[in-house]
């Protein structure tokens, strides 16, 4: 088990390396530079800006400098905003993480029980209800969900503010963004959990448990749920990845001051410095999160832990 963990950790390094090369290459393959779309700047100014940001070095040198900086935690400058990316990230990362964690907790706390109940009351009313909710979740893109929630609850009913985020200082502002972000994961988790539970129900060892005269409650909680939830851990990786990329849209629509919103803005502004740095940041975070999920999975499945 320890060997598995070590191997997985070491594996992240080459992966991130390749990701950095790809990201860097893409940004430099894009025609035009960070300032080419704006009203034509005089050539001298462009040359000056390039030199200032080190964009006149040969490409491999630029890469090395950039990668080197990344390794020590320097995310580089923003070409358009006059700040370093580190500052931008420091400003918003807390908010984004807060939103992401809340959405994650919500999706697990709602999704798993929904799936379990749906499977246990298979083809009866609770199942239809749970399925209905998950159907809505997969049919509604997050931007649509966000807009609809916004218009209905915020603009029309005025229960929640339309924008802003202040963490626990303003709980009402947290509700809609979290809900909009969690909708799709709730649907995925509940569908998957339900399918997993249904499969477990058909297993032989459940019949063994029943032959021992155990209470139905015991059979479900001790024997079924444990086995059904282990596969569910495998989709937590994609769920986390979704929460990260989904935050772009949610933060934009609800004007939540997180780094996702800045990322979208940078895309529009062609601020390659920010785009590259934040892409690497996201990739690194997702790689680590996937690692955690994989290790967790290996830990909770005794067949892997003791082998």
């Amino acid at each position, binding site marked *: 088990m320890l060997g598995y963990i070590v191997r997985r950790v070491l*594996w992240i390094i*080459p*992966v*991130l390396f*390749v*990701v950095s090369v*790809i*990201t860097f290459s*893409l*940004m430099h*393959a*894009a*025609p*035009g530079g960070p300032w080419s779309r704006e009203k034509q700047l005089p050539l001298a100014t462009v040359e000056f800006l390039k030199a200032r940001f080190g964009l006149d070095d040969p490409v491999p040198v630029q890469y090395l400098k950039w990668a080197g900086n990344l390794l020590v935690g320097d995310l580089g400058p923003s070409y358009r905003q006059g700040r370093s990316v580190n500052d931008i990230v420091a400003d918003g990362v807390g908010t984004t993480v807060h939103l992401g964690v809340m959405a994650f907790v919500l999706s697990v706390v709602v999704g798993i029980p929904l799936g379990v109940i749906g499977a246990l009351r298979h083809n009866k009313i609770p199942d239809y209800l749970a399925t209905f909710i998950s*159907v809505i979740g*997969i*049919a*509604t*893109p*997050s*931007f*649509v969900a966000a*807009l*609809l929630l*916004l*218009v209905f609850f915020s*603009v*029309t009913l005025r229960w929640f503010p339309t924008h802003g985020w202040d963490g626990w200082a303003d709980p009402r502002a947290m509700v809609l963004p979290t809900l909009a972000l969690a909708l799709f994961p709730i649907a995925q988790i509940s569908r998957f959990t339900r399918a997993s539970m249904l499969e477990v129900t058909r297993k032989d060892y459940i019949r063994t448990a029943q032959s021992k005269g155990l209470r139905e409650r015991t059979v479900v909680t001790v024997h079924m749920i444990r086995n059904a939830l282990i596969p569910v851990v495998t989709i937590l990786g994609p769920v986390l*990845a979704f929460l*990260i*990329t989904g935050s*772009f*849209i949610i933060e934009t629509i609800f004007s939540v001051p997180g780094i996702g919103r800045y990322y*979208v803005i940078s*895309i*529009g502004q*062609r601020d390659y410095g920010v*785009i590259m740095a934040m*892409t690497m940041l*996201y*990739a690194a975070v*997702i*790689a680590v999160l*996937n690692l955690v999920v994989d290790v967790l999975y290996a830990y909770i499945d005794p067949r892997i832990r003791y082998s």
Partner: protein
Amino acid sequence: MANRTEALEQPAAAGARAASLWGDAWRRLIRNRLAVVGGVIVLGLFILLFFGPLIAPYPYQEQHLVELVANGNRPIGPFQGEFLLGTDDLGRDLFSRLLDGAQISMTVALVVQAVVLLIGLPIGAAAAWYGGRVDSYLMRFTDVMYAFPDLLFIILLSVTFRDTAIGGALNGVLLVFIAIGIVSWVGMARLVRGQLLSLKETEFVEAARAIGVSDFRIITRHLLPNALGPMIVAVTLGIPGAILAEATLAYLGIGAQAPRASWGKLVADGQQYLRAEPHLVIFPALVIALALLSFTFLGDGLRDALDPKLKGKQ
């Protein structure tokens, strides 16, 4: 003593029915009402793909400024007159624009899955068949692809190349296909590899090799048909993801450019009118939901129908 051969030729008891693989699956699929409904809608969407422009009452980019002005320069609401679902803020018929969006979404779905198959299938098959280092390298490569969150990479690709020739082709739609396809083939490669690996060690493959059948033939004639079921399911279930990705990109302003009417773009254009003229967002949202759900239900139905564990059972 009864003749043994005659005895064996006795008709099997009524309970044992001769059933072909696909016939069995088809029967199971038909019984799944959700899947049938989904399938019908999918069929309808494909018809729209080819005949949408013919059905559309107006060209999607035509602005009906006269009527718009008559309406106080505001988007026209649905079910009111000549415009079935109303118009947008530039006087363009929403229904026709939805049809254009359907064409875009269905094209995305088809082209992306075609790319996925074209790239993913050979790579996965090669990895499974040749094993060893080839397999290793290919799997490491897919691991790297996995590290990139899909949407992130798609955005990156789209942003990078949007000012190039490809980016401009078909109003930016081609770029979207390619970007989504590049990200999506990994899953198919892994699936194909997994399926073929488990089949590779079977005896009939050994026999075929012993007879001297070429590798290529073994793969195409013997292995792939068995993997066909899961592949069909994967392709079908992958389409909602592609449609969703395209819609999200369009919403963010990447991908299909004006005046083309990708559903995501329609939502983006309509969101500022959400209070007064909600139809501009509601109808695109509904068709998106319809498309996503129909492919998902069809895919679920296919998966249940082709489930090897249920083969032979009713």
